[in-house]
């Protein structure tokens, strides 16, 4: 096995435009040439990380934006936040196609399924609601009410929906099996991300631990510590080859671990340098390149690239 790739540590661009914390940043689908970010300033912004230019600002939210999801064809995206509705936007025109009310509280996360026919939204009201985008029904297809506390994160796979909740559970709704597997992790779960083979799942919890769980048995495969996530939502992700695990930090650092041995990677022995002024709220790795975007409470989105691209 070749040595694990060096995590992207070189600052490529800083996408500054948001006023106040940037809660979420997502890559566009496909080649991932664009990123979208949503923040406290009630806007969603479209960037081109290559040049660092801001392409579009989507204004329409009345409250802060917590969740974003880009459709498979990059034609539309969904956003959610404090205004308890899921907004479906047309990327090109910058208009909302639909606004889907129904949640009782702010919506922390939103996610399309693979062909953007369904959008799932997870809210502070402890429910995941699945909305049909093909029909114009105002009712949710299904409401997943098993969680006992706020939903922080959703992953929508081809046959399963995975939700992470503040009640410390990762719930896997298997559509094909008709089965719900609830894995108790204990502390609040802020992000879930399965590997591409859907065998393992990476969960970031608020006890400053990122855990790699076996999806089939629910066993702990590896845990990654020594960073600090205790009160803010942060996301952990894999790199493109799924050999490293990356996670932001409340001190503004971006940590990287080797997936297998769980040791922190990166420059220095005392941990990675502080790259953001404030807590890192979201990181996302490019689907194929050695590129990483991170959103922070200091209002910036930073694009990081590996040394090889330099």
């Amino acid at each position, binding site marked *: 096995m070749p040595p694990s790739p060096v995590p992207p540590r070189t600052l490529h661009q800083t996408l500054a435009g948001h006023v106040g914390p940037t809660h979420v940043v997502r890559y566009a689908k496909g080649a991932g040439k664009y990123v979208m970010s949503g923040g406290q300033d009630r806007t969603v912004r479209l960037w081109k990380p290559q040049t660092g230019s801001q392409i579009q600002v989507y204004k329409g939210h009345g409250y802060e934006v917590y969740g974003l999801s880009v459709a498979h064809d990059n034609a539309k995206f969904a956003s959610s936040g404090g205004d308890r509705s899921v907004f479906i936007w047309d990327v090109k025109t910058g208009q909302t196609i639909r606004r889907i009310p129904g949640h009782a509280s702010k919506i922390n996360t939103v996610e399309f399924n693979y062909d953007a026919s369904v959008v799932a939204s997870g809210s502070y009201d402890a429910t995941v609601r699945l909305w049909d985008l093909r029909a114009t029904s105002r009712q949710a297809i299904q409401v997943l009410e098993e969680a006992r506390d706020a939903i922080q994160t959703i992953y929508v796979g081809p046959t399963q929906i995975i939700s992470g909740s503040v009640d410390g559970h990762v719930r896997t709704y298997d559509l094909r099996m008709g089965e719900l597997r609830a894995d108790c992790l204990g502390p609040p779960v802020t992000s879930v991300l399965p590997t591409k083979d859907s065998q393992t799942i990476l969960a970031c919890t608020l006890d400053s631990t990122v855990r790699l769980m076996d999806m*089939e048995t629910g066993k702990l495969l590896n845990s990654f510590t020594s960073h600090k996530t205790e009160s803010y939502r942060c996301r952990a992700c894999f790199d493109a080859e799924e050999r490293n695990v990356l996670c932001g930090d409340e001190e503004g650092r971006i940590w990287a671990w080797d997936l297998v041995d769980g040791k922190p990677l990166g420059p220095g022995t005392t941990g990675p340098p502080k790259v953001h002024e404030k807590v890192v709220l979201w990181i996302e790795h490019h689907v194929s390149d050695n590129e990483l975007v991170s959103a922070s409470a200091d209002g910036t989105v930073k694009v990081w690239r590996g040394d090889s691209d330099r």
Partner: protein
Amino acid sequence: MHSGQLKRKLADLGIEGNNPKLTESFCLIGTPLPPLEKSKDTGEFVPLWKQEVRDEQGRRRLHGAFTGGFSAGYFNTVGSKEGWAPSTFVSSRSDRASKKQARPEDFMDEEDLEAARDDRKLVDTHEEMDLLGGTQAELGTRGGDVENDSIASALESMIPSAKDSAGSLLLRKMGWKPGQGIGPRITYKQLILQDQQSSSRPFEPPTDVDEDDPANKHLYAPRDTKVLLFQRKDNSFGLGYNPGLNLQQSVDGRTTSVSDNGPNISAGFGLGALNDADDDDVDVYDGGSRGGGRRLAFDEEEKDQDDHIVMGRPGQASQQETLNRRPASSSTFSDGRPLLPGFVLSDKPVSEDTWFPVPEIPKDWTPDPRRVWSQDVKQEGKENVPAKPSFVHPSRRGAFAVTLTADERGAALGEARLPAAPKSVFDYLAPKDRERLQNLATTTSLTTVEVPDDSQVPDEALIPHTDPAVARAALSGFQPFTSNPDKQARYTSYLQSQASPGETALLPLRGQNREEFTHELREFAKSALIFKPSSGALGGRFATASIQDLGSKPKEGLYTPSVDGPREDSSVSETPKEPEEEPKRRAARLGMFGALTRETKPWAPAKLLCKRFGVKGPEVEAPPLMASGVAAEPEWKPDLSAGPPIGALGAGPSEETVAAATASFRSGPTAKKDISNIGLGDDDDQGRDVLEYTRPERDIFKAIFASDDESSEDEAETAPAATAEAAPTPSDLPESVPNNVPASIVPAHPSAAPSSAPLYEPSTSSTLGNTPVDISTFRPTFVSRSDRTKDAPSRKEQKEKDKKESKKKGKGKAILSFETDDLQIVPTRSDSPDKERRKKKRKKEKRDDGKVSEDVPMEDDDMWVEKPPPATVNTTDEPVVPCFPDADLEQDKPTKDPHRGRKRAVDFL
């Protein structure tokens, strides 16, 4: 009624009813019949529908729906066709004076008024009898002034209206007259006695009764029992004050024994002839007999009047009294003021309280109150008295009825006694006794009253007292001086000394003078009171439950963390009892992830959701298998870890995945069949499934499909065909049971496009010979096309039947929505029997789902094809926002092989 009959008869005869001749009366005796035209014969029969119900007033009260039901309200209650109208507001502002008070009569209608009148009449019709001596008639004569006096009329109304009761009637018959008492007649003597008893006058023996008095010769009716008369309090004077009388008269009205001597007794309740005049009854407003107007416990005046009793020396007291009293006609008080007219000086004291002799005093005892005080404070420190000076500031004492007389003050100052000073009892006491008394008075007042006194600094530092319980509570409670550890330590030691007195001695710090030390200790005492747990104060009021909890007992009261208190035992109760931790959370906390932290339960995704996800939804009917949780899971789960992963990169499961999954499926519980003799005669299971299958009614088929000419054929054929179809004919056997027939030739739909997912794919790699084969997938009769042509007659029927069956299948297909390939709709003849059999089998399986579904786990799964992923996800490189000029359209690099660097769960195991 009779008139009615007569009328009818006359009508029959053709005679007009209004013929005047008919009305002519010929009656000489009795009552003539009523005239015919207006016969009001009340007894006449009226049919039910003509009858009307009327009330006493003759009004209709019942109105049915056909007789104006809606107007029931109008007729019955409202009284006007317009209904009830609220009275308009009329301002009474201008004529407030003329506003009358509303009477009940204002709200009565005529009926109510009448009823009220009737009620009054019921009373008035009775015979009047007035026990009080005035009949109604009499009252009527002087009615004018009665009317004027509103109070009198009100009282009048309270008196029950006079009437002769049965009892009074009886009594009258027995000789009683109004105004007399009841009982046997009595003698004059007895009568006088009775008069005296009834009066409040003191008993005077009727000495004046003469034996020869003619009054003695008669018997008298006893006096009537007095009616209790209450005087109405209609003035604003105080209770018991008689405004008409002057002082002399009011005094004379009382018993002479009281009014003769002593101070004025306030007239009031509770003072009867036999009551002793108490201290409380002394008229406080009577200034003459009192010296200062204040009543003090140890007044001179008090001493004058009371203390001589205390000392139990009546002789001296009387002497004193005689001294005080001027001999001159006792018209002046002891201080020379003249007595008020009408007052006399009392010979006896007003009250006699019980006093006890003072205890024996040790010989060597000398009064030194200062010593007593310091001793008290030093040794016990228990009394809730802060630092006390040895004597109390006089200015503070006035309020508490402890005053030093001028004499005492003088004595304390060492002055010579003034000669003109009025003598008191104290003067006659030994100085020792006097001082002791003084002390007694001082201490008793001081122990009950806390007098904070900062003006006097005591000689030694006085340690303020804290109750031991409070001190203990405060020890375990909040520690207020944590910022100053030294002070905190001193605080703690103070509390400890108070909690267990006598163990530790408190010493002032070096460099801390006494005043500061005392001040600090006082602060400590205060903070101990403040910071002790509040329930400590209440806790003393409740008895502890006798049953004690065996577990760790949580501390009562507010949780107050002790930061660096010396007693860390509170840490036991420091953490409030957490709710019982869920086992899974505990397991998660301990890192024991896996079965303990996982919870599996069935979940039914909405159908639409499955459709949108392109996923064949699960059979929700199979929860018993699902619900068994973790243990049952591996059975049903395709062995994913063995095969290639499903759904990588968002694509649906690849074909080989499904194949592998199904293969592992098939090697399930049904794999144990002995297949060596399948289809043979000694196959136990042969035809079992088939025979259980109940065909639908043949008539149904006929009605739907059969043409007329076919019907006869079917009649003859269907019965054997049902079995012959499934059970292989002997001619089939040689070819149908070769053990080495590769299963790859079995596929039922040879024309099925290989590109699409296999509709049905049996275990591809296994042969029948060495691998267990699912019975559901095994085809015992495989007949080649050429063979099938041999037995023509039966084949022909078979074909026709096939046609019918396939038609039926085609119809039924609408229900099985997932069988979407058109291949099945028009079956080729060549593969029809196979297909027929398979379909039939499937149908059967569906029928008795409960029984067989375990053996055949959802064959329909095979028919379902996962949707290919949308094409754009991985490869598109369309510009996201083509309208932006800088959105370059560079070609995407080919995506890297997703499998390249991937690690799977097995890598970690």
